[in-house]
């Protein structure tokens, strides 16, 4: 079982463990535009980039590898021109880019949790069989962010509430919704690492550190990444 966390003297929350395990299953499974082996390779390239190891890939295009590396180590300097070049490159598209971003940042987040606590990184999973569905939601629309996004009506009905009271959700919640499953994944790992959607509305959620302490850490990480949003 992945993420057993045995032999360590840290109280890892069950929700954290289960969200990590689900993330590994998601990464290993075929997505809409990349198969399992490609998705695991995305995570591998991103993991190496965080260690400033510029690895190549035998199964990902040069543009995909470059995009992963930029997302991991130079995210503060991404711009629209760069995005347009990436999605126009061989083997890329806006759909494939969105899925690549989702896999890269969710895998990175789990690795970052381990690095922050001085834990060994979890071995990447083996790929599950199957091919990408190549289904683009017909409701996708170009809004103000670079990739198109999907309104509440394009999500699985069980996930529609994850946008909150807004049709499109806060911009960071709907950003990766061109692959609608990403919205559920985003929330699942948020609950494992930070707060659930319901807890985000609480002034004093059930965590060991206070809400202002939580948000101070969040703000500091955002500043260190020079993230304006």
């Amino acid at each position: 079982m992945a993420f057993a966390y045995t032999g360590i003297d840290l109280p890892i929350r069950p929700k954290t463990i289960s969200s990590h395990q689900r993330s590994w299953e998601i990464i290993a499974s075929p997505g809409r535009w990349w198969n399992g082996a490609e998705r695991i390779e995305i995570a591998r390239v991103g993991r190496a980039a965080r260690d400033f190891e510029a690895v190549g890939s035998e199964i990902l295009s040069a543009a995909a590898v470059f995009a992963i590396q930029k997302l991991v180590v130079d995210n503060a300097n991404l711009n629209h021109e760069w995005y347009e070049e990436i999605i126009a490159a061989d083997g890329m598209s806006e759909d494939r880019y969105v899925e690549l971003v989702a896999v890269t940042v969710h895998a990175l987040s789990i690795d970052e949790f381990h690095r922050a606590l001085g834990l060994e990184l979890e071995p990447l999973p083996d790929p599950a069989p199957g091919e990408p569905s190549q289904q683009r939601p017909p409701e996708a629309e170009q809004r103000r962010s670079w990739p198109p996004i999907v309104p509440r009506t394009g999500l699985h009905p069980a996930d529609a509430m994850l946008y909150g009271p807004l049709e499109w959700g806060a911009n960071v919640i709907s950003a990766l919704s061109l692959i609608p499953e990403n919205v559920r994944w985003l929330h699942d790992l948020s609950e494992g690492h930070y707060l659930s959607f319901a807890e985000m509305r609480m002034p004093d959620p059930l965590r060991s550190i206070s809400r202002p302490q939580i948000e101070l850490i969040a703000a500091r990480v955002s500043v260190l990444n020079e993230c304006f949003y």
Partner: protein
Amino acid sequence: MLRESSHRNGTIDSLNIHGAVNPDSDSGVPDGGLLTAFAEAAVRQTDALPGLRERIASVLGAQQLVDAAGVVANFQRMVRIADGCGIPLDDFTKEASEDWREDLGLHEFASAANTA
């Protein structure tokens, strides 16, 4: 979110939001200096990280250390979603934060051009 949580938590009067930007500035959040030092060491992967882990575990507790690590991990992800998708500021955030974003120098960030 830091300002909003301090409002709702009843600690807004002691909050100094510059503490999130400048590590030499006291945020007014209890143990804020220790937590932001940990966040910085984790993001930058510095040699200070092991010592800060031990200090948080001894001063605040092991669960607090784990929860702090979770927040770091979460926002290492969220900033890259924002930057990688060029998302604009939410309208409600833009209106509420205009003054202090300028004051904190956030408009100097390269990503401001994508999300303003």
